[in-house]
């Protein structure tokens, strides 16, 4: 390799250093200069967490070979609050509550800085357009736009700088008040360290070998060539697990690396710890695995049929969990109904797409405590599971929760922490694994895809007499949170409605697809999608207003749920009123509206999206037209 002698001005300081020719500017900043404020959310130009100024122009540093920065002036997020004093924009982000998990925020602040430099008077639409290259999964963007507008107005003297300060609240008097987030300054300045930003002296880099097959027996794994490579410290497989292997939120059916067979594409098979990530990558490529293909099953309904391929021996019917609920007598309820509607619904797998890909750092400390630092949403449970897997007393296992750059349920599973712990034990050195975005998508849990059939019996006046639902969910290759998701799905399936006769069955099924797991709303989405859609259909058939049919059936204070929980207070009616008012709802049955809705066009309805608002504000462009 021919190193590049890079001379550049970075955050105001002259830098003259050798860099590997294949590095991207982002790698050079983060790994060589330890400027970790800007992040790598995707590595493919899609997210904007890596946005930095190059000669004053905002660029995505994951798309820029470091050689392009030769002679350039580069400014990262760290340049904005150099002496510790936040910039106006950073203060505005803090004030407006624009940072949540914070992982997108350094890039957002950079993009917002660029936007206001390009047009100090940009209106909200133009701000949106100019921030189009940066993605946030937490905030819904509104507070970010609020922050940019606030900063713009302060910069232009339209509002006083005091607007950026905290509104005083008396000590402890916070309930019902808008209080600033105390963690915001660390996020807007890029100083907060996520797991992938952390380094330790002597740290090794981990890469993982993943299965290309959905269902195959592992005949043999030959790691000798990988182990023989310079810079490779350790290679582990399931055979290295000292204790009782297996993790999962409910059933411990998943080994930390595939044991005897692989059950989905992307499943970890072996892990390498090496002096640098590139060496680890090359070692992974040198591991030889011999597979014997097994018949896979990808459809949950097919997996339930007799004779289907079996994913886990302990569950020959491929059922991970079946949750039945029975209230009253549904058949009698349907017989007594004026109208019975039967429909089917399906929902697809969804990726959480938190902006922070999984990352973790593990080490064995001076007291032999195996320590794992990771953005885990469930550290206590992980600690207990890991102790058993590595056969150490619980007092010798420690989990530290690093800042979570978005989780949404997707970081509840102990997908990689076991491998890290084992490698730290093997090498007695700190080890770090940082997922790529692709790895995160291929190997971690998704929202359960579902198929639901729903029968609903109603009286002419809109009262629901009976509801029967059967939902089959694709749980994928491992159990993860499936049991809990099926439980919640069943509990909430009939909605907040008082229905005398209810029959619900939810099934989580093993297949050879990517495992499904927790995702915010945890099962409620799938069943509620069916129930609420069906209520709209019922409203149309019965000539009722969709809000009205919900009010007619709403549970009231003191009602009992279908799973026998007595409700002290029910806020459904208030929620319906508020939603009806806020949406400017045009009341009436769905069928009474003509081709044009009467409730569109008021102030709160957004126009359809387009791009090009900047043309209206730039004189040069106007002249061009």
């Amino acid at each position, binding site marked *: *390799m*021919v190193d*590049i002698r890079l001379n550049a001005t970075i955050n105001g300081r002259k830098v003259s250093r050798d860099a590997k*020719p*294949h590095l*991207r500017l982002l790698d050079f900043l983060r790994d060589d200069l330890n400027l970790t404020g800007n992040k790598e959310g995707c*590595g*493919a*130009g*899609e997210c*904007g967490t890596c*946005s930095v100024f190059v000669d004053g*122009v*905002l*660029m*995505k540093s*994951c*798309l*820029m*070979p470091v*050689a*392009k920065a*030769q002679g350039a002036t580069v400014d990262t997020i760290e340049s904005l609050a150099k002496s510790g004093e936040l910039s106006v924009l950073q203060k505005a982000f803090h004030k407006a509550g624009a940072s949540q998990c914070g992982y997108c925020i350094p890039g957002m602040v950079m*993009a917002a800085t*660029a936007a206001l430099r*390009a047009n100090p008077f940009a209106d909200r639409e133009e701000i949106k*357009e*100019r921030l*189009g*290259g940066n993605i946030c999964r937490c905030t819904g963007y509104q507070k970010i736009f609020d922050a940019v507008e606030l900063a713009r107005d302060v910069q232009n003297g339209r509002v006083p700088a005091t607007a950026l300060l905290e509104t005083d609240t008396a000590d402890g008097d916070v309930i019902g008040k808008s209080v600033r987030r105390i963690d915001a300054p660390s996020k807007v300045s890029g100083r907060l360290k996520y797991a992938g930003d952390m380094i330790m002296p002597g740290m090794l880099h981990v890469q993982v070998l993943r299965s290309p097959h959905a269902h195959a027996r592992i005949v043999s794994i030959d790691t000798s060539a990988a182990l023989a490579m310079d810079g490779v410290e350790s290679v582990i497989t399931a055979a290295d697990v000292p204790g009782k292997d297996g993790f999962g939120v409910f059933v411990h059916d998943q080994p930390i690396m595939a044991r005897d067979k692989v059950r989905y594409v992307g499943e970890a098979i072996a892990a390498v710890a090496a002096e640098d990530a*590139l060496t680890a*990558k090359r070692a992974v*490529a040198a591991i030889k695995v011999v597979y014997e293909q097994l018949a896979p099953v990808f459809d949950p309904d097919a997996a339930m049929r007799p004779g289907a391929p079996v994913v886990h021996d302990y569950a020959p019917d491929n059922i991970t969990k079946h949750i039945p609920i029975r209230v009253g007598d549904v058949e009698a309820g349907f017989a007594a109904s004026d109208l019975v509607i039967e429909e089917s619904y399906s929902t697809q797998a969804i990726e959480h797409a938190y902006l922070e890909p999984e990352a973790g750092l593990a080490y064995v400390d001076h007291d032999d405590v195996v320590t794992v630092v990771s953005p885990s949403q469930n550290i206590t449970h992980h600690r207990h599971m890991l102790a058993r897997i590595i056969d150490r007393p619980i007092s010798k296992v420690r989990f530290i929760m690093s800042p979570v750059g978005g989780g949404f349920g997707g970081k509840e599973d102990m997908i990689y922490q076991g491998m890290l712990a084992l490698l730290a034990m093997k090498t007695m050195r700190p080890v770090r694994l940082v997922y*790529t975005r*692709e*790895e995160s998508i*291929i190997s971690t849990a998704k929202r359960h895809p579902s198929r639901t059939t729903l029968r609903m019996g109603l009286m002419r006046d809109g009262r629901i007499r009976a509801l029967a639902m059967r939902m089959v969910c694709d749980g994928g290759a491992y159990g993860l949170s499936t049991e809990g998701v099926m439980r919640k799905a069943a509990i909430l399936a009939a909605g907040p409605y008082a229905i005398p006769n209810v029959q619900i069955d939810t099934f989580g099924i093993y297949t050879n697809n990517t495992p499904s797991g927790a995702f915010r709303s945890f099962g409620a989405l799938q069943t509620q999608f069916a129930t609420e859609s069906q209520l709209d259909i019922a409203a149309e058939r019965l000539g009722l207003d969709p809000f009205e049919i919900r009010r007619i059936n709403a549970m009231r204070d003191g009602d009992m749920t279908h799973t026998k929980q007595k409700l002290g207070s029910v806020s459904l009616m208030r929620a319906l009123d508020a939603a009806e008012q806020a949406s400017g709802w045009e009341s009436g049955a769905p069928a009474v509206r003509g081709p044009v809705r009467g409730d569109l066009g008021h102030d709160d309805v957004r126009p*359809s*999206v*387009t*791009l*090009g608002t*900047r*043309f209206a504000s730039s004189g*040069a*462009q106007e*002249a*061009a*037209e």
Partner: protein
Amino acid sequence: MLICDEYLTPASLDEAFAAMERHRGRYRVVAGCTDTLPWAREGRAGDVEIPVLIDVTKIPELNERHVGDKRVRLGAATPIQRFLDDAALGRAMPAMPRCAVWFADDQIRAQATLGGNAVNASPAADATPCLEAHDAIVELASATGRRSMPLREFITGPGKTQLADGELLTGFECDAFPGYGGSFEKVGHRRSLVISVVCLAVMVKLDRDGKTIEDTRLAIAGIRPVPRRLREIEDLLRGKKLTGELLEEAADMPLDLVQSRSRQEYRRDVVRGFLVRGLIAAAKRAGASPDALTRELEAAYG
């Protein structure tokens, strides 16, 4: 991950050709790298080891820009963003600024080059249909000589061009259309950072009263292997009085444009809507007389 042993940044064409000769069979040319780096990732090419990368963006000839009344010459390394910050260029190529706002995002546009867009030859590329509407000629050079050809001959299929081994794309020679109104219609899964499901470049020139179409250029992409000029529609419109009926007639021409394998019905609907909407927008920017097009028409296609 893109792995190389050496990254070269030649400062002239001669230096570039010398490097290409020296590393024959072991190099790859890069410009903005916005196609090349995402390509070298898992799920696409995966980890790619290329011994030598040759970056052409510092070659002066590839950065030249001449904007005349009749012709525009653009170096291959021109970043897409230039169409937004060079007003004279925007006037000469009036659909291009509109295309540029829809192209990736503000940041990638600063890096992504026109030449890269053409050589990458994606069916969903946004700049190539615009260039096609300008009858762009591509200029090629190698150590042994130079040649040129129309863009429509240069791009032969998805990801395929006539670029020969040892050759560089140096620039584009385009017809200038000052005084035309331009528009660019695009739809993808979201606004920024998406590749086109359908995109359409439109330019319209009207007579002094803003009532008659003197000339028009249209090119469409995203729905077929290579961009396509819509000469049939241009011929239909040229010299006609600007009316809503005429634009709808143009959009209804039975051209069977959609060759994509997926979502054909949807794309056909979009193409029809885009044709009318794109023509309305371009005509308005060309100074259409206020009574030429009705409000209802604009609302229906807005």
